[in-house]
């Protein structure tokens, strides 16, 4: 075991993702506390390593199987890095890549996993993670025992590190298992442009499952029209097929930062908050006074949305 902290870098195109820098900041902090190194694993072509200054080393593996994100190939490569570098902690983003790899490596690398972490701290000999459960309604403080651990960290929970300087580049030979894959990427889909770009709007009327049924969307549309703002929504509304994917706010949808975000019948699950918590003004309507959305909203009300939306629309129309 070492005192090092390893981060898996994620890229979109050639660009290292924000969440990678968030993980790197924490890796730096913990590695410094332990007297270890902050290292980043970077798979596929090694361009991107120069964006990772601030780490002590970038561990590169390149192989044709790693040119796209193929879950199995990434898992193989990451397990190889873990075995070679023996870090004390592996940090992954609690998004698709982390959801694929974290739990699998917890078994394969035999390390405890703290999922949905929002913070990590060293407490004497212990590593303590704060994690979210039950849609963010409860926080758990968990101790990760043993000499190695994994945490998947919710995007936006940690301040990103500003990369500076340059890191040592260590290139590892690809493990032989990469040659025999049971998985391949057939096609990559970029988001299709929608009728409206919700990321460009000054104000959004956003609806969640509290709206109840597709027929009730009318209420939101009427209000949105009166306000001159587009309608956006939480994931269940999109999954139900009531609105197109381009209107989805959140982790697997779009990140929005309007001047005002009006949330109706949205509970405020961590995946939703990831997409809208930095809006300048958040006003939430939810009949459950304990809904987590009220922890990020600036203003809130427990008035029924079926009363509030028409009242708002009426008043705006004057």
């Amino acid at each position, binding site marked *: 075991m070492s005192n090092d902290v390893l981060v898996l870098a994620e890229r979109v195109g050639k660009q290292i993702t924000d969440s990678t820098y968030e993980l790197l900041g924490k890796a730096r902090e913990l590695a410094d506390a332990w007297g270890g190194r902050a290292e980043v694993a970077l798979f596929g072509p090694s361009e991107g390593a120069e964006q990772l200054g601030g780490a002590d080393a970038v561990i590169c593996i390149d192989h044709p199987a790693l040119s796209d994100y193929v879950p199995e190939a990434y898992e193989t490569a990451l397990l190889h890095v873990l075995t070679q570098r023996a870090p004390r902690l592996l940090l992954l983003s609690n998004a698709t890549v982390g959801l694929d790899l974290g739990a699998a490596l917890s078994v394969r690398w035999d390390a405890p996993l703290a*999922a949905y972490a929002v913070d990590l701290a060293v407490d004497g000999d212990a590593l303590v993670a704060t994690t979210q459960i039950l849609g963010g309604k409860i926080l758990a403080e968990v101790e990760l025992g043993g000499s190695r651990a994994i945490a998947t960290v919710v995007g936006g929970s940690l301040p990103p590190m500003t990369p500076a300087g340059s890191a040592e580049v260590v290139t590892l030979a690809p493990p032989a298992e990469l040659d025999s894959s049971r998985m391949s990427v057939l096609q990559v889909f970029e988001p299709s442009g929608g009728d409206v770009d919700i990321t460009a709007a000054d104000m959004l009327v956003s609806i969640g499952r509290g709206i109840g049924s597709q027929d009730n969307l009318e209420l939101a549309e009427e209000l949105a029209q009166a306000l001159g703002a587009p309608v956006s929504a939480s994931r269940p509304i999109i999954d139900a097929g009531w609105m197109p994917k381009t209107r989805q706010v959140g982790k697997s949808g779009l990140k929005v930062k309007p001047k005002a975000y009006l949330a109706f019948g949205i509970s405020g699950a961590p995946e939703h908050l990831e997409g809208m918590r930095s809006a300048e003004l958040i006003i939430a309507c939810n009949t459950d006074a304990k809904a987590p959305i009220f922890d990020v909203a600036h203003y809130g009300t427990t008035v029924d949305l079926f009363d509030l939306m028409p009242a708002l629309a009426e008043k705006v129309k004057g």
Partner: protein
Amino acid sequence: MRIVVLMKAVPDLVEEIELTPEGNDIDREFLKFVLNEWDDQALEEALLVKEASGGEVVAVGLAGDADIDQSLYTAVAKGADSAVKVIGEATQTHERAALLAAYLRENPADLVLTGVQAPDDLDGQLAPMLAAHLGLPHVSVVVAVAVGEGAVVVRQEFAGGRSQEVSVKTPAVIGVQAARQTPRYAPISRIRQVMQSGALPEVAVAAEASGSGLRVRRMYEPEKTSHAHMLTGSADEVAEKIIELIRARGLVKG
């Protein structure tokens, strides 16, 4: 093709969540449990696969889960061919994965579908853990599954509306985020009929003990350091205040 759908009962988030007196776990005694919504999506996707390509769908739960019977009967009412309870109890995903892996070793499936996550997963998600135990390929955050020759093609989602299509050799384990259509509804009368027609078989398995390695120090409700300022009054009064707020930012005319 034998498709196994793994189902878990989770606390109903609409209910008030209480903690145990020790403050290091949720108090399950008076909680209402419902099927994990992502397991419901997995079941729907499994039924769609069966309708498109044939096969047999088996819904599997843990006997120790509170209120799991209802979900398993409902699965059969919706179109699963059978439902089974694996004997065992688990509060952590690591224990659950060990039990279900033991079941699947003895009763292999071509395709295992389960929810991408459950809201009470403290120690991670079931699908990848199970796959690791079984040495199978796995993909999470999947929104469509199609069966091909010795493989399935799944659509996996990423942030920002990006996604990819991945071909995965079977047997495989898939963590389902959403089915291609809203989960179907089973009429209560049909569920009753299924309940009356037979008990749920229970299967014993020989699982290795396995813990998560986590020790919960405490659980707590997030501190309301930044709670919303609450607007009270009638709908009209609240609407008035909201309009003032957005008007102050120049977002509504007049």
